[in-house]
């Protein structure tokens, strides 16, 4: 299970990386954390001709909170978010999600930007990005453009990112003190791929819900904000939410992929259970 041969480049900047990507064309791939890419090389599921390693670029944004945004650059590792008190304060949803991302040694090397670039249906960071409607900054040889998460996820492993673009930064809107967050994920074992998970962000105004972005991930090709959940809670007192009805609506809305992890009926029932747990978290979770 050894990778097939490829060439290697280590650009000094993200701009240079994008230029290399464009020039090399179809056979090139960006190497950031590598925690999903390298296994596929070893399994020979893909055999790129060139890897562009962005782990030493100088122009990657730091992990910081400024102007109401939590910024996360291309070289920031999952573990940095997991251990950051700033993230726990300004992006609590990410702090809730991080322990579910694979295992400690993977979190030491994997990157949130890489997770967004791959957009695996079971990945936690894409679901949180959609729940917070984060901005995804894409670098190409000409410059940068920003795509809101709502417009970024298109189909199974298909995103707005062009093959010549690099995900260089995520910009999560910082939490307001009245916001409420909830996260729950069902997986067979700790760190396994999610069977079904929910990441939710609720904005309140004097104890009534102005908006709820309850995102389901894991059992559909892309993470998706539940329209039903938003409709059922808008304007209602946070304390009097009909949690079970909302969970039923979320489950009914689901169009799950059928695979070895289970059939549609099982996944709907599991989504119902996860939605109930997240709604309960929103209820008692004070930021």
């Amino acid at each position: 299970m050894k990778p097939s041969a490829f060439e290697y480049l280590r650009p000094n900047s993200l701009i240079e990386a994008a230029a290399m990507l464009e020039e090399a064309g179809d056979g090139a791939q960006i190497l950031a954390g590598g925690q999903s890419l390298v296994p596929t090389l070893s399994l020979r599921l893909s055999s790129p001709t060139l890897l562009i390693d962005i782990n030493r670029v100088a122009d990657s944004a730091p992990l910081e909170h400024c102007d109401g945004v939590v910024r996360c650059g291309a070289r920031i590792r999952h573990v940095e978010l997991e251990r950051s008190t700033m993230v726990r304060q300004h992006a609590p949803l990410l702090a809730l999600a991080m322990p579910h991302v694979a295992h400690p040694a993977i979190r030491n090397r994997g990157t949130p930007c890489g997770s967004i670039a791959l957009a695996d249906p079971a990945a936690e960071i894409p679901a949180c990005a959609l729940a917070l409607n984060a901005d995804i900054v894409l670098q190409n040889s000409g410059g940068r453009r920003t795509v809101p998460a709502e417009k970024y996820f298109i189909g199974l492993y298909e995103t707005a990112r062009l093959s010549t673009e690099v995900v260089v930064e995520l910009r999560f809107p910082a939490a307001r003190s009245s916001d409420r967050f909830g996260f729950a994920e069902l997986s067979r074992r700790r760190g396994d791929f999610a069977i079904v998970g929910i990441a939710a962000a609720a904005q309140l105004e004097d104890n009534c819900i102005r908006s709820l972005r309850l995102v389901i991930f894991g059992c559909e090709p892309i993470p998706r904000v539940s329209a039903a959940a938003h409709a059922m809670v808008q304007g209602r007192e946070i304390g009097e939410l009909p949690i079970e009805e909302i969970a039923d609506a979320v489950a009914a809305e689901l169009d799950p992929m059928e695979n070895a992890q289970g059939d549609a009926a099982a996944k709907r029932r599991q989504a119902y259970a996860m939605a109930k747990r997240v709604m309960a978290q929103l209820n008692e979770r004070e930021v």
Partner: protein
Amino acid sequence: MELVGQVDLNATPEVIWAALFDPSVLQGCFPGCKSVERKSESEYSAVLQVKVGPLNAGFNGVITLTDPEYLSAVTLAGTLNGAGAGFARGTARITLQRRDLVTELSYSADLRLGGKLAAVGDRLFGTAVKRNIADFFASFAAFVDADRKDTASCLASL
């Protein structure tokens, strides 16, 4: 892995039938298809680069159009071998049904993956391959639907 579907085409069975047997149409409509060359009346050799998330593998193989019933049904079958990845084998029975204004194309496809493609988890590829089949018929519909535009420009727009 079965997949059943149907799509209404704003075109006559004659146009559809011709498109089905036109290698450039097959090449244009199948995602990641690099080339389709006619080898005989009903056999084509094809080269595909299938890219789905982590999978990015080259396939080559043979596509056949067999037991045709002129203007009403044909079986599209393919065996594609990936260098290290294994194989994908599938057959799709395509039937055309003339409705008043449109022609309804329905397909029932059975697809099997083998070798490494099968062994490293259908969590990834089961859904992806179904989507590829659905995409093929969607782009085929888009192609024959074009209001009498010449074939070349249609292909360019795909």
